[in-house]
């Protein structure tokens, strides 16, 4: 912990001089930065807006909200997604809820409190000004969604209901049963549909962005593939917004949808955009475990289960194969209650996840492959009755039974941690613009608001904040410097990138080897999960960094992509995404290797004090922004040192 004067001294320390572009936030008091920024931001006159074309890649919460709002303001918008409809973006799967500092419960919540908890939850690795803005606009999001007809849960008096989520002491989470993401996305999708029918947005579904086009160093368009006809073409615009979600599928198994990918952001990275903090990945403790080698994805079960379930494994390895009911109470290890007596089963996500892994590493895991722990409701059922548990978690127990064929009222659930969210992403400034002028990045695709770890119910908030309220105010700062319509798809820069994309696609199709794209993806995922998952070591990361290039080499010589490029070809789409994951995986491990500390979702086994993460603010309180150098094994590190005006570093402790 540092005092004000110490913090001041550290900022002027020459060692801590940032070499990223300026973050662009105005100086002065934190709480009024956003207002001042809006007041001094450039405006585009309504008559001129229609002359600007904005390319929005992605139709999740961030993309749909941005596309709809910019179109309402009069800009010409082109929006792209890879699904058959914008309504199917991965945001649809979010369950738990969305935070907002409305303080409807009069329980002491405020913009400041939400801001502070987000910074602290992010383990002091997020940018203060961005996070404060997020907390400020959170309340507006709820107003907007309600006006669109999002059917949030309500109390008997007709007012909006809230719950406390993820261990917070205030009730600020708005929800729609266990389908909050679905309802918020449908709200944004309907707003987008309204603008499509007004002619302001042209929607391109089943269209995948395969590259970014820069003209004189500015992002001016994208090259895309029509996934139905296979046609590769360009779209020119005055600015490009990437809202393409997270990269969790680099681990192969994750709670993300199968199509989630890093292609858009990775291609932009290879065109010059800095990739920030890729090693910050969030692992969720309560997912349904892997049941076999054919497993294609993992399913999240709401964390709320830990309110009434107790985590345990057998004390003795030889008991692991026995039916749980036959294991006597004294032979069970309720490891979370034992290790963290004050938080017990409600220990934070990263701690609960690592503790489960430790038990399994110790050979005391249960279920297939020994990769699971029990989450037992027997005591709660005894205390509250089966009916109460059914009311609270009925749908989750049902989902569990569908997937595993087991009845969790009668035997304990088996759970295991899974990759869930990625805090890293493309580096952006306060305007959400990357270091490539004109390229803006929103939602999970950017790095900006969650530091090293994200609080529950804050990703939906950030996606919608970026799309509805931030980008509409900040984009004109860039547009005002640009003459609209200055570039066209016919320009040489577009033709060159198109040719490169065509060449790459032909190459994928012509290798004609023996292995499927999926088999490479699985192999990569296992390696990354093993060496760069819940716990990382220098040794393991070094090994991964040796193996990834070799796997990539095999990919490019032994891949088999059936079919042709001019048809609907899911195998070709997959191959392109896996090719990018095989490159990105190396950057992920490099980032984890350089960060010789443990913070948030990044745990380096060498840096701990008896299991507690050891953060090193002196050496590592920076954003790691990586530049592509042309050599995948030698990315260049730029540092944005984090300077805190309002908060002081403190250490988390859950013992």
């Amino acid at each position, binding site marked *: 912990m540092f005092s004000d004067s110490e913090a001041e001294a550290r900022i002027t320390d020459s060692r801590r001089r940032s070499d990223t572009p300026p973050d662009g936030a105005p100086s002065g008091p934190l709480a009024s930065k956003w207002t001042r920024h809006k007041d001094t931001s450039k405006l585009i006159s309504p008559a001129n807006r229609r002359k600007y074309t904005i390319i929005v890649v992605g139709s999740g919460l961030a993309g749909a909200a941005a596309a709809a*709002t910019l179109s*309402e303001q009069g800009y010409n918008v082109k929006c792209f997604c890879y*699904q*058959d*409809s*914008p*309504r*199917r973006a991965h945001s649809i*799967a979010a369950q738990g809820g969305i935070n907002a500092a*409305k303080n*409807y419960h009069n329980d002491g919540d405020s913009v400041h409190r939400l801001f502070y908890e987000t910074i602290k939850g992010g383990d002091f690795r997020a940018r203060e000004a961005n996070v404060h803005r997020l907390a400020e606009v959170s309340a*507006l999001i*709820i*107003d907007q969604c*309600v*006006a*669109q*007809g999002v*059917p*949030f849960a*309500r109390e008997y008096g*007709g007012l*909006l209901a809230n719950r406390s989520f993820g261990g917070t002491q205030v009730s600020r989470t708005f929800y729609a*049963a266990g389908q909050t993401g*679905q*309802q918020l996305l*449908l709200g944004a999708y*309907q*707003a987008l549909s*309204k603008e499509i*029918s007004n002619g302001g947005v042209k*929607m391109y*579904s089943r269209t995948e962005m395969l590259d970014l086009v820069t003209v004189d160093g500015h992002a001016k368009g994208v090259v895309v593939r029509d996934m139905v006809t296979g046609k590769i073409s360009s779209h020119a615009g005055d600015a490009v917004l990437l809202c393409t979600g997270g990269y969790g599928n680099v681990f192969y198994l994750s709670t993300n*949808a*199968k199509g989630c990918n890093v292609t858009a952001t990775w291609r932009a990275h290879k065109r010059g955009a800095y990739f920030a903090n890729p090693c910050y990945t969030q692992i969720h403790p309560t997912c349904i475990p892997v*049941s*076999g080698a*054919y497993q*294609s*994805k993992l*399913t999240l079960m709401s964390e709320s289960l830990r309110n009434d379930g107790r985590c345990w494994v057998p004390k003795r390895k030889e008991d692991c*194969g*026995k*039916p*749980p009911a036959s294991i006597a109470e004294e032979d069970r290890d309720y490891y979370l209650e034992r290790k963290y007596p004050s938080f017990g089963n409600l220990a934070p996500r990263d701690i609960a996840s690592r503790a489960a892994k430790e038990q399994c590493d110790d050979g005391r895991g*249960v279920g297939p492959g020994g990769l699971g722990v029990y989450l037992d409701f027997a005591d709660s059922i005894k205390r509250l009755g089966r009916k109460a548990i059914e009311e609270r978690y009925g749908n989750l127990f049902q989902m569990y039974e*569908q*997937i595993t*064929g087991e009845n969790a009222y009668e*035997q304990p659930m088996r759970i295991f941690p899974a990759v869930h969210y990625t805090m890293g992403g493309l580096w952006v400034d306060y305007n959400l613009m990357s270091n490539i002028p004109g390229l803006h990045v929103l939602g999970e695709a950017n790095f900006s608001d969650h530091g090293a770890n994200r609080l529950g119910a804050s990703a939906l908030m950030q996606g919608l904040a970026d799309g509805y*309220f931030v980008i*509409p105010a900040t984009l004109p700062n860039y547009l005002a410097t640009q003459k609209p319509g200055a570039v066209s798809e016919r320009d040489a820069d577009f033709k060159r990138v198109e040719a490169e994309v065509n060449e790459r696609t032909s190459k994928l199709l012509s290798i004609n080897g023996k292995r*499927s794209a*999926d088999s490479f993806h699985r192999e990569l995922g296992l390696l990354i999960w093993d060496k760069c998952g819940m716990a990382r070591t220098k040794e393991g990361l070094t090994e991964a960094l040796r193996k990834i290039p070799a796997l990539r080499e095999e990919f490019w010589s032994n891949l*088999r992509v*059936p079919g042709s490029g001019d*048809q*609907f070809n*899911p*195998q070709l789409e997959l191959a392109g995404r896996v090719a990018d994951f095989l490159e990105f995986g190396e950057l992920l491990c490099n980032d984890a290797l350089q960060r010789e500390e443990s913070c948030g979702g990044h745990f380096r086994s060498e840096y701990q004090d008896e299991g507690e993460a050891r953060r090193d603010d002196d050496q590592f309180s920076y954003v790691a922004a990586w530049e592509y150098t042309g050599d995948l094994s030698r990315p260049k590190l730029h540092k944005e040192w984090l300077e805190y005006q309002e908060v002081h570093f403190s250490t988390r402790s859950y013992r």
Partner: protein
Amino acid sequence: MAVQKTSLDLTLKIWRQAGPDAAGRFETHEAKGIPDSASFLEMLDIVNERIITEGGDPVAFDHDCREGICGMCSLVINGMPHGPNRGVTTCQLHMRSFRSGDTIWIEPFRANAFPVIRDLAVDRRAFDRIVQAGGYVSVRTGSAPEANGLPVPKQDADAAFTAAACIGCGACVAACKNASAMLFVSAKVTHLNLLPQGKPEAQKRALSMVRAMDAEGFGNCTNQYECEAVCPKSISADYIRKLNRDYRNSSLADIAG
């Protein structure tokens, strides 16, 4: 805990069709040793993996979330959209619902308004165009009043949510002998028209969405309610009855106005 491993040997009759205008046919595949804990789509992954390594042409099908919420997966399995189990999508169906030795017929969702793209994947953009015709509340970002300014009776909010749970998969259309989209349309109209925020445009919404549905080539509803039986979200056919009433009223108002 001892986990029983059971595996199935199956005969699959899979619809193959090169493109929208090509003729289709069933192709037979033997799927051996399929773990009963695998999902239906994982079973197809296993089949495809083998086809690829043997140098063949894998089966194209749509999917994304694989947890029953995005509405991307489809498939008619043994004549039933989303397969034999009620209240689940194809991606949530697991192989333990089948027996070793079974023959399974796998087809795309069929409807004139859903042309086949390839094999089992179809084009459902007609649903998007129906929503564009009025499935929204016309509110600009930033112009919303304070969220708690207008209380909404809990029962209305809950009922609206139940209708809004539709995932837009199109199973209702595939199940209907007239390929009607009334369940889809009525669910959206019900969701928005129940809420005070959706009331100002209620009549116009019902009218334009039904007209858009007709224009897309979906059939008429003749009250068979096969749609309700296959809906993975158990959306109620009562909404159709309600929509029919709203539609009649709106049409009258339209004529009068």
